[in-house]
């Protein structure tokens, strides 16, 4: 079997879907190959841009501030690469980076507006949504269902954490305690926090419940009214102005469910950020796929890129394998957005770090060759520390067009671009920058690939 397109994107997470959608919207015929779901579907569903400078514990107040610092401290960070362009003068690099990242994020926000998961948040400030553990984390965009309104500003706000009987991923007592201690320590509202447990029985049983079945259950008509009855009592008793629930408010109807619930219980309702694989992460994945499909692009699920053909400086085709068939896909340009260790774009074993499809050069966060580096040498003993895990910063080195480069610094192929977490030079988990880098680099790589395709035509 053979097929062809202008642009072949390998990987269907945030970076691949943003890149594919932009290309497809510009009339470029696009195929996205996806072998499995990965970090985007696995995420909490909030879009981080930049939360911290590695090694520090004070979060940035806004992506604008964070990007300016990153550009200064890490000139080879994927965000910084966005600013390197022949037309940009040195003194304008920082504003170019901010402009490009902002363009990508604005694009994302506009396009997600009419999907199952519209986003809320601005580039001018980071926000601090609450997690199921009762902690907060800096992020830029959250799904509208996670928006807690005036909870953390209004002096007389009262928050009720509502757990679900038989649902083990959220313990309202622990969350309430942690959150309240935290608020008292920094002297900010809400000053009163309560907790309760409600009952939701998707299959008639109040035990052994998973997030997905509760979410699907709440998509059904009338089920939200049922929990509103239970919540209303608790809200009145505590005098709660806000209610925090685990991220299970629905798969397709979450936004409408939030609204109905708020009307019925007369308090603001919002979802907490949850553990992976979260329902909001799945919503984000579904919504991004929907944007891509609407743009006219073809999503080829269940196919894994296994080999390629290259002549000189040009990549000709990639062979993809489905369970029982192989397919050759000819394209003019290619974007590699195959992810890092979860997605399988990079693999590490005793022989070193490898890029899975093309065997591209891998480097460490310190820009040394990672080809022979054993992953276990790149880890910290402390699992979660501001320094992070160096192994996360490994990946591909790219030129200003987001083309992966060889050891001599020249691009590996004139028509291969890379985006997303496969890029080296940043640690998403300490920076809190994962989906932001994915969206921005996906956006930028797509721009380069589109220009390239138009030039060839």
């Amino acid at each position, binding site marked *: *079997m053979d*097929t062809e397109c202008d642009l072949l994107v390998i990987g269907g997470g945030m970076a691949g879907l943003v890149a594919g959608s932009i290309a497809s919207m510009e009339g470029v015929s696009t195929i996205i190959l996806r*072998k*499995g*779901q*990965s970090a985007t*579907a*696995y995420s909490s569903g909030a879009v981080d841009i930049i939360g911290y400078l590695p090694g520090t514990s004070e979060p940035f107040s806004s992506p604008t501030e964070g990007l300016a610092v990153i550009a200064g401290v890490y000139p080879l960070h994927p965000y910084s690469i966005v600013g390197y362009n022949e037309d940009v003068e040195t003194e304008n690099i920082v504003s170019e980076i901010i402009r490009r990242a902002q363009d990508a994020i604005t694009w994302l926000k506009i396009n997600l507006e009419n999907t199952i998961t519209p986003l809320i948040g601005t580039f001018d400030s980071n926000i601090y949504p609450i997690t199921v553990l009762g902690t907060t984390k800096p992020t830029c965009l959250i799904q509208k269902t996670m928006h807690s309104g005036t909870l953390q500003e209004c002096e007389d706000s009262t928050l009720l954490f509502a757990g679900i009987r038989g649902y083990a991923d959220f313990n309202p007592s622990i969350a309430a305690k942690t959150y309240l201690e935290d608020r008292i320590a920094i002297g900010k509202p809400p000053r009163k926090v309560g907790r309760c447990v409600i009952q939701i029985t*998707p*299959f008639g*049983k109040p*035990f*052994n*419940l*998973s*997030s*997905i*079945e509760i979410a*699907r259950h709440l998509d059904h008509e009338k089920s939200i009214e049922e929990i509103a009855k239970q919540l209303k009592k608790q809200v009145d008793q505590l005098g709660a102005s806000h209610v925090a629930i685990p991220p299970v408010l629905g798969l397709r109807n979450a936004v409408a469910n939030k609204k109905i619930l708020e009307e019925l219980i007369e308090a603001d309702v919002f979802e907490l950020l949850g553990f*992976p*694989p979260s*329902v909001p992460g*799945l919503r984000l994945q579904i919504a991004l796929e929907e944007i891509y499909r609407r743009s006219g692009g073809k999503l*080829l*699920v*269940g*196919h*894994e890129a296994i080999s390629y053909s290259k002549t000189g400086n040009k990549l000709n085709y990639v062979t993809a394998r*489905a*369970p*029982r*068939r192989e*397919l050759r896909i000819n394209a003019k340009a290619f974007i590699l957005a195959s*992810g890092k260790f*979860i*997605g*399988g774009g990079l693999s590490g074993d005793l022989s070193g770090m490898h890029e899975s499809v093309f065997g591209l050069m891998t480097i460490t966060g310190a820009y040394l060759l990672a080809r022979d580096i054993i992953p276990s040498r790149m880890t910290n003993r402390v699992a979660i520390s501001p320094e992070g895990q160096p192994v996360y910063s490994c990946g591909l080195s790219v030129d200003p067009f987001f083309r992966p480069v060889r050891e001599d610094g020249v691009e590996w192929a004139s028509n291969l671009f890379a985006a997303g977490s496969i890029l080296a030079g940043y640690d998403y988990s300490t920076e809190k920058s994962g989906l932001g880098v994915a969206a921005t680099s996906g956006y930028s790589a797509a721009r380069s690939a589109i220009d390239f395709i138009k030039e060839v035509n």
Partner: protein
Amino acid sequence: MNEDEAYDYVKSTLKKERITPYRQEELEYVKSVENCINCGLCINHCPVVAAVGVNRFSGPRSIAVELSRSPPEFWSTADIVYLCTGCGTCREVCPKNVNIPEVVNIIRSRIFDHRPDLVPKGLFMVREILTKHDLAFEPWEDKDEKTESRNMRLERLRIPFVPDKFLENAEIIFYPGCQAEERAQEVREAAKIILDYFDIEYTLLEDMSCCGLPARLIGDEETARSLGMQLKEKVTKLGAKKVVTTCAGCTSNLSEISYNYDWGVETVHILEFIAEDIGLERLKEATHRSNELADVHVTVHDPCHLIKHTSRQIMEHALNILRLLDGVRVTESEAYDSCCGGGGLVSYHANDVATAVVKENLEAIEKTGADRLVTPCPLCTAQLETNLYKIGSSVEVDDLTVFIAQRLPMKR
């Protein structure tokens, strides 16, 4: 005790320990579980979990990280692993390519070997028919009645009868599969119409037998292997280059066993054959204003055995074919690729689960407003038709092969 003696001693205890060593081709599947990162993405997508919840069916992650860990205790998972419809969704969304559907088959085969008492009773009925007739469905006792049933179907669908062909040295073997052979005979007839119309030199098997997929799903590896071997012999003896089938399950299973057991013969679904060998242009020409069928608004169901066990590209062919047929308008259902519940032989022993799984499809199909649902698999066709009928839906169901054959003109 030397090493060999020790090995023999251990081997002799296996039966008592209820362990059957993994075979070579199973090792790849077993080892794929090592890659599982326990992320649980599969739970969000499993149609059985969606239909009955994790308390009844603990889901693919549980199969990978819990239920498949201890061979001597495989028996304790029987109430769960036989509820898997084998749709392959988990393997498709898995970032690490963990082959859970095959792991399920492995566990089922061990339960069948060591604790047949725990295999759902309904499956033994299927096995009895399989071992007795080499077919998954009880053959017609009266051949005339079978012919009559066929003729009634042809008449209702307004498609002509093309006599069976049995040739030696034909390049193509048409293999209808058990369902089209014994039950949905119109599908078998429709494929013959298509092949005949385009002057394809093909043959049927003189003695049709099952590809062995149902036996694998029961866990009866021995019957599965012997059916596979039997079919290999019949196919290779004819010296054909390609086997064409109309059944999604046969497509994936034949592709697998022909690869595993070196048949040296390619096996394809008739949609692939139309798109790649006959050519869409020829089909377009042939069907253009060829009949007086009224315009029809259809929606499509993607059979799991084609998209998740073979390749999603095959349904691209289906859509391309539908797009070129005159008077056919297609609306995609939201659940187009969601399991129909008919897989994994679940409906034979836990019909409530199969019915709960198909529900999502029914709602989405109704929502499209289509007059008709088409799908390139007789099993999906039957499962969806029965369940749509039960809810009083006005949507008709056609196997896609029949739908195409209806739009071909009578041959000159």
